[in-house]
């Protein structure tokens, strides 16, 4: 629980980033996770995401394709399929608890796939902030739910920010 009166503000910022989704055989994806750069999130044994800053799109896609296409895998930019928002700790902890039933745990970084605002979403908790990802057709819903449903936390819309992982590596 956030202690009121500490001057904390829940600021929700839309995040500009690149998402490259790779579908392929597990060994190829394992190799890609460590070599492609970007932030690697394992979605499934046969699916890997590479997250990067907005300008990293072409580079990540080329490396991803180089890593999986030879073995029949797929690599495509899925940036437009997801709406991504960021919030800073400690407010983000209560925010996440409002939205998701699963615990985040104390470890950082951590990547979880869970239901957010009643749709399948994902969360990436880094040391300095929490990223929430929901399918773009319901992106507005996440923002509305936070701004309306969490109004007791005095949420406000922050300026857009670029995705910035503190250090590359698999979550």
């Amino acid at each position, binding site marked *: 629980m956030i202690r009121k009166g500490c001057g904390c503000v829940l600021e929700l910022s839309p995040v500009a980033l690149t998402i490259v*989704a790779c579908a392929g055989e597990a060994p190829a994806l394992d190799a890609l996770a460590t070599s492609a750069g970007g932030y690697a999130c394992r979605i499934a044994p046969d699916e890997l995401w590479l997250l990067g800053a907005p300008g990293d799109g072409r580079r990540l896609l080329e490396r991803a394709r180089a890593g999986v296409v030879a073995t029949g895998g797929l690599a495509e930019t899925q940036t437009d399929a997801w709406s991504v928002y960021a919030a800073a700790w400690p407010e983000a902890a209560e925010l996440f608890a409002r939205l998701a039933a699963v615990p985040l745990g104390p470890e950082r970084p951590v990547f979880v796939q869970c239901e957010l605002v009643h*749709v399948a979403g994902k969360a990436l908790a880094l040391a300095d902030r929490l990223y929430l990802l929901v399918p773009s057709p319901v992106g507005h819903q996440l923002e509305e739910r936070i701004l309306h449903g969490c109004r*007791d936390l005095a949420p406000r819309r922050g300026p857009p920010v670029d995705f910035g992982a503190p250090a590359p590596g698999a979550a």
Partner: protein
Amino acid sequence: MRIDFEGRAVEARPGDTIASALFRSGVRVFSRSFKLHRRRGLYCLTGDCPNCLMTVAGEPGVRTCMTPASAGVEVRRERGWPSPERDVLGILSHLGWLFPVGFYYKVLARPRWAWPQAERLVRALTGVGAVDPSATPRERESINDHPDVLIVGAGVAGLAAALEAAGSGRTAVVVDEGVPGETIAPGSTRSRLEALLADVRRADGVRLFERAAAIGVYEGPLVPVVTETLVHLVRPGQVVVATGAVEQHAVFEGSDLPGVWLARGASRLAGVHGLAPARRAVVAGATPELGDHVRVLRDAGVEIVAVAAPHGLELDLPDAGVVHPGASVLAARGRTGIAGVRLRSEAGERLIPCDGLILSTGLVPRDSLLRQGAGLAMTAAGDVTSPGCSLAEAEASGRRAVRGEYAASPSPGAQATGVASGGVVCLCEDVKARDLERAWSEGFRSTELLKRYTTATMGPCQGALCGPHLEAFARSKGAAGPASAATTARPPARPVRLEDAAAGVHLDVEHRTALHQRHLDLGAAMEWLGAWRRPEHYGDVLDEYWAVRRRVSIMDVGTLGKFLIGGPEATEFLERIYPCRVGDLEPGRLRYTLMLNEAGFVLDDGLICALPGGRFYCTLSSGGADVGEAWLRQWREFFDLKVNVLNRTAALGAINVAGPAARELLSGLADETIDAESFPHLRHRELDVAGVRCHVLRLGFVGELSYELHHAASESVCLWDALLGAGAELGIKPCGVEALRLLRLEKGHILVGQDTDFDSTPDAIGLGWTVRLDKDTFIGKRELERLSAIPTTRRLVGLTFDGESAPPEGAPLSVEGRHVGYLTSSRFSPVLGYGIGLGWLDSVGGRYPTAVRAADRAGTVTTGAFYDPEGVRLRA
């Protein structure tokens, strides 16, 4: 501080509950009973009985004994006309014999027409508070919580458990219905509790939720905790139930009169609020607490005129003369409140005048949560497992419970004493002891059956007071085992508001395409299609329609399911998924296909586009993406093929450009030449359109020259604006879903889900040509082969209707008065000048009718497309 009690100001002091403030102001009748309108006064003061339920700030059924008084709050009683003190329906309490348990199942069952009137009357005469339907709904939010330990109840045992959890480095949440200790009169218990509470407040990792109710235990365990601000959905590693015990409700004639108290409630009023519950009181009971209660009451100025206690109970009272060893209460007498108590002792029966009867006959575990969570990770501590245990025992049990050393099993608790026939067993539902007798005599011979027939235990207290009496009654009749066991405990254990039950539930998940705001800007009327919001029209459906037929239009079809499929065995995979041939599809070509289930029935439809490198781009209908993805992935696992699937639905937008001028429009915006020869029907290619990279599919769902532009969703707005701008000279219009429905119907194209049923085969809907039964295998093939040997008795047909309208969708089809099917789609066709439709038609005598009637209109059965059946226009 003043509260507004039924229009008059009532003084409340700091620390007062609404109930204590009202009692101080002289209110003695707090409610009227559920059925018989008997007067009810304060009784338990622990939130366990229904007597103090009132409407507070417009909210009915509020337990005023647990609700702090706040300045200006409006409080009113819920029953009684002209006033609860003088309720004219109080006459019912003398006519109870006319309404024995279950009477309305029998007496009001015939004649049937009388029941609605009788039901209205029953509803008007019974019940408690009413919800104000004009009240503004309040939204409540929920929060998920994952402590290591959840402790329900902040008494001595619960607080000790919290300290044990903190000491072992675990996080804990402690919830209490009130403020810990606030209901306990000053004394050793309260002192110890306050000391523990101070430690808990200092402990790391322990959070204390005051005025919070744990309303149930679900699998997980999941325990919803309603606090004043949020509903916490607590999923702890362990639950410790330390909910204590409630004093046993006594059942004898007059035991529900105002002035009869459970002793802990009377002590609370006296010791905490400084109010004497009576001037002259009889105290009766058998618990070790009895002496303490007498002392607290005396300190508050109550004259104790008699103490009825069993032989051997050490009371340590200075004036032993008032003690009647071995005496028991036979009845309470009085009209508007208690005026005397009839005691029976070895010396005989005796009526003692008094205005209060304080009862401490036993303790019953408040174990509803414990029983709900049987089999889950739960332990228990304190009175709930050992009613009446000492402070030291309670503290030790709390610590043991957190260590898991205490098995959670409901205590048998105090054995309820027998019920006297005139007494009220269930205060909530006005069930008397004689009602139980009648139910038993009618064959309802177990606690569960008694509960259902009499509704005892089904009121706000959920059996906290009457449950043990039901069990005792069944045992007294010879029932054993499950027939006399406690009834099943179910959530909610405590009254819960509807807004709390719905907290955090938001079912209006609305999917929007990237062009949503553009549609709104253009004045679109939006409609729900599955989970999507789509433009139904932009103000003039007919104009949109003619734009497609005569000029050019654009339509947002970003809702289509879109998948990229690749891998060494992608072709083999799709050959098995789809009933059409896939292997012969060369890159750059596309094919319409159905998707069938294992039974050979139509699941969805869409397109397959062959890409270089053995990859495929496949589309499914709007709303089919989620099911489609699950379907593809599930079969991939089953087939164990080397195939990769990427769902591109949300990543890609799609705009359909349709109409005779579609090519002209695109030619002006594309980076390459677009003509009929280089880009014929059922082909697809990559193009830059208005600077946006598009995967362009040429097809014809609306029966005109059409191109679907699939592109990165983030560029949808740019592309849409460019198309609209460049098309202005061509008379371009955006087209909504309603125009689409008409356009595709003229072409005879089906909408899966609207024109198909769960058991529609390709043949039955006229799409048998899409199926290649000569393929080795595909999902549904075996069933289609079996079905092909049987003549169809029902098929989807086209229908035409004379006149300037069409029968409504869903209209039954008939031949000479015999029902032969129904319309699935129908519209008036502007271009044809008559009504058209699709509908399911049964064969009659082995032949399909050629003429039918629908909604009193004559219809002619047709086959194929109504408009441009040769497909000249879409192949242009």
